[in-house]
C-alpha cells in the first residue's frame, strides 16, 4: 500500500493509505485524531473542515494521498498544549456557540480560516463564510456571536434572535 507523509498540527505524521482513503479517514482511523467529524460524507455539512496548507477544506472530499507533504491543521491542534482554549474555542464556550457539539470542530476551523483572511468580519460576512457549515442545534446565532467576540468586536449590538 502507498505511504503518505504530512505535517499534522506541527508534527510529522505518516502512514499507509489506499488511493481511495479520504483525508478524514486517514486522520481519524490511522492517526486517531477523531476530533475531525464526519457528518454527511457528501461535502455538504462542513463538520470535517480542516486546514491544508492554511486553507479550509472538507477532509471528506480530499484524498489522503493528495496531502503528501502538506501542512494539515485539525481541531486537536487549536488549544494550547496545557489545554487552554484558543480565543475562538473560548468564545464558543462563553457565548453558548454549541449544543451537541457535533458541528463544532468544523465551525471552529472555518472560523479560524475566516479570521485569518478577514480579522474583523461583519455579521453578514460571517454568515456568508459559514455557508458550508451546517448546525442542527444552535440556530447559528450564537455561533456568529462567538466568532464576532473572538475577533474582538462588541456583540452587545447583535440582536438576540
Amino acid at each position, binding site marked *: 500500500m502507498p505511504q503518505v507523509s504530512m505535517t499534522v498540527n506541527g508534527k510529522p505524521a505518516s502512514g499507509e493509505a489506499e488511493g481511495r482513503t479520504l483525508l478524514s479517514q486517514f486522520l481519524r482511523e490511522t492517526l486517531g485524531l477523531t476530533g475531525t467529524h464526519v457528518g454527511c460524507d457528501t461535502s455538504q455539512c462542513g463538520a470535517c473542515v480542516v486546514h491544508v496548507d492554511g*486553507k479550509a477544506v472538507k477532509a471528506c472530499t480530499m484524498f489522503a494521498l493528495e496531502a503528501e507533504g502538506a501542512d494539515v491543521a485539525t481541531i486537536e491542534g487549536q488549544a494550547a498544549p496545557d489545554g487552554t482554549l484558543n480565543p475562538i474555542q473560548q468564545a464558543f464556550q462563553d457565548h453558548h456557540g454549541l449544543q451537541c457539539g457535533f458541528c463544532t470542530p468544523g465551525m471552529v476551523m472555518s472560523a479560524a480560516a475566516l479570521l485569518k483572511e478577514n480579522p474583523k468580519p461583519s455579521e453578514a460576512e460571517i454568515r456568508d463564510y459559514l455557508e458550508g457549515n451546517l448546525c442542527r442545534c444552535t440556530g447559528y446565532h450564537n455561533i456568529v456571536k462567538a466568532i464576532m467576540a473572538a475577533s474582538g468586536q462588541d456583540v452587545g449590538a447583535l440582536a438576540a434572535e
Partner: protein
Amino acid sequence: MYNFEFERPTSVADAVKALGQEEAQPLAGGQTLIPTLKQRLAMPSKLVSLSGISEMKGITQEGRTLVVGAATVHADVAADGTIAALSDLAGNIGDPAVRNRGTIGGSVANNDPSACYPAAALGLGATIVTDRREIAADDFFTGMFETALDEGEIVTAVKFPQPEAAAYAKFEQPASRFALVGVFVARTGEGVRVAVTGASEGGVFRWREAETALASDFSAGALDGMAPEADDMISDLHGSAAYRAHLVGVMARRAVAAAR
C-alpha cells in the same frame, strides 16, 4: 468507493502519458469526482492527480486576454479581480472550502448543466486550451455533461478576452448552491453575448434573441417581457420548465443592469 491506483505527476506531459492507461481518469479538486466515486457512479483503474502540476496553476495576463491555468482553484480566481464578473462568479461557487479545492478546469471539463463556469466561458467567448489544441467555447460545450474533449485529453488553461462590461446573475438552488438558473452577459468589441446555465436539457447555451435585442440597446429594458422557449428547459422538483424559462429573462435583465 472502489479502489484505484493513484498517480501525482508534476508535468502535463507525464499526466497525459499516465492517462494513456485504460480507464485512467484525471482528478482535479475532486469536488465533483469524489462524490461521484463514493456513489460508485465511476470506476477508474487509476486517478491521475493534476494538483502537483505547477504549469497548470495561476493566472497571467497576455495583452487583453486573461489566461487561467486549469488547476487554479475558484478562491484564486475570486481574489484576482481582473475581470470583475468572472471573479464574482468564482467567489459565489459553493462555499469557501469548495472554492479552496475546486478548479476551473474540473468545472468546464465536467460541464454540469447547473455549473457556473461554463456560462462565463461561453458568455465571454473564451478559448479552452488542452494538452493538444485550442477549442472555442462555442464548440467546447456539446451537451449536458458532454464536451469536445477526447479520451485522455486534459484542459490545461482557459483564456478569457477582457470584456467592455459583463456580469453574472445567479439564482441559487438553496440546497446545493448550484445555479437553478444563471445568466452571464458580456458586451465585447465583437457584440453582446448572453450565456445561460442551469436551465436547459442541453446544458449551457447562448440566448440569441437576447443578444440581438441587446446589440442595439444594451439595457435591461431591451429585454422587457422576453424569455426563451420553455420546450427544452429542465423540469424537476426545484422548478418547472416554464418557471426556469421565466427566470432566464429575469436573471438576464439583472445581469445587464449589473454589468460593469
